[in-house]
C-alpha cells in the first residue's frame, strides 16, 4: 500500500516537471514558475487518486482540470497575472498522448497491413475506442479548465478593477 502511494506521488512530481517544462516553452513570467510546478503536481495527485479508486479516465481528468481551473483563480489574484498563465501549462501533462498514439497505430495497421475481416473488426474497435477517448479527454480538459473562468468572468473583472 505504501509503495502505491510513493508511486502515485512520484508520478505527480513528474507531472509537475512536465507542466514546468511547458511553462518554460510558453515563456511564462519568472514569478509564476514555482506556482505552475505546484499546480501541475496537485493536478497529477487529483487525477491519479481518482484513477486509483476506479474512476473513469475522462471523469478523473475532468475533475483534475476543474481543480486547476478553480485554484488558479486565487493565484491569479495574488500576483495579478491572467489565469491562463498558470492553468494551461498545469493541464498540459493530462493531454491523452498514449491514446492518440494507439489510435494512430490502429489506423496505420488498418491501412497498410493485409488481414481478414475479423482482424479488421478488432482494429476498428480499437481505433474507435481509443479515438473517442482522445476526443473526450480533450473535451474534459478544456471544459474543466475554462468553466470556472467563464462562470466567474464578470465578477473577476470587477474585482481586478478595484
Amino acid at each position: 500500500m505504501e509503495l502505491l502511494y510513493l508511486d502515485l506521488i512520484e508520478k505527480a512530481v513528474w507531472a509537475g516537471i512536465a507542466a514546468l517544462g511547458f511553462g518554460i516553452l510558453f515563456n511564462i513570467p519568472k514569478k509564476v514558475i514555482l506556482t505552475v510546478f505546484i499546480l501541475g503536481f496537485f493536478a497529477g495527485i487529483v487525477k491519479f487518486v481518482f484513477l486509483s479508486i476506479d474512476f473513469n479516465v475522462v471523469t478523473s481528468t475532468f475533475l483534475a482540470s476543474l481543480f486547476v481551473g478553480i485554484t488558479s483563480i486565487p493565484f491569479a489574484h495574488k500576483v495579478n497575472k491572467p489565469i491562463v498563465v498558470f492553468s494551461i501549462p498545469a493541464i498540459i501533462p493530462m493531454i491523452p498522448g498514449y491514446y492518440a498514439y494507439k489510435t494512430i497505430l490502429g489506423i496505420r495497421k488498418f491501412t497498410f497491413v493485409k488481414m481478414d475481416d475479423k482482424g479488421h473488426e478488432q482494429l476498428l474497435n480499437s481505433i474507435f475506442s481509443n479515438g473517442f477517448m482522445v476526443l473526450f479527454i480533450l473535451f474534459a480538459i478544456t471544459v474543466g479548465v475554462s468553466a470556472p473562468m467563464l462562470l466567474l468572468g464578470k465578477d473577476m473583472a470587477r474585482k481586478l478593477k478595484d
Partner: protein
Amino acid sequence: MIDMSKEKNIRNSIDLLLDVCSLMMTSGANTKRIIDSVNRFAQVLNLKSHALISHKSIIMTLIDLETNESYTVVTQIPRHGVNYSIVSDVSRASWVAVNHQWSFEKLYNRIQEIKSQKRYPVWLELITVSLAGAGFARIFGGDYLNMLVAFIATFIGFSVSKTAHHYKANTYVRVYLASMAASLVASLGILYGIGQHPDIALATAILFLVPGVQLINSFNDLYNNHILNGIVRFVSGFIIVLAISLGMLTIMLIFKLNVLG
C-alpha cells in the same frame, strides 16, 4: 528633435493599438482577452475602438471621441509563437493604464519595453522540455530506461524544431520534421528493446509538439462566441496533429515497426 511616433494623434494611436493586437494574437491570447485589452487602451486615450481580429490579419477602426474623427487600418499579423509573459504584461498594463490614466507616451514606451523582453535561453528550454518528455513517459507507466529514451528523443526532436524555426520553415513542415526526428530516436529504443515498455517512449517523445495552447484557445473562443476564430484555431491545431502523426507513421513504415498487439 522630437520623436514623431510618440506624439498622441489618431494615426499613431491606431498603430500602437494594432501593435498590441498583433502582439497578443501571436503570443497566444484568446480573442476575448485581446479585444478587452485593446478596448481598455483605447479608453485611456479617449478613443473608441472597433476591431475585427482574425488569425492572419486585423481590421481596426478608431474613433476620436472629442473630434469624431475616425481612422481605419488593415494589417497583417506575423508568425505565431506562444509567449505568456507578453500576454500577461500587456493585460496587466491595460488595467494599470486605466487606473492611472497613462499618457500616450507612457503607453507607447511600456509596449516597446514589453516587446523587447527576452525569452528564456534555448538551452533551458531544451532541458526542461526534454525533462517534460521524460515525465510523460513516467506518467504513462514507463520505467527509467524508457524515460531516458524519451528524454533523448525529445531533445533531438526539439532541436530539429528549433533549427527549422530558425530557417523560417513552414509550421507544418517543421512539426513533421521534428516528429520524424523524435520518432526515429524513440524507435531505436524499440528496435534494441531498451526498457520494459519501449513503445511508451515513442508515444511520449512527440508530445512536446502537441498544440495545446492553440486547441484550448480554440475552445475558449468558441465558448465566447468568437466562433470563426475558434474554428480557425481548431483547424490549424488539427493540421499540426496530423503532421505529428504523419511524421510518426513515416518512421514506423521505414522501420516496419509492429508494436500493436
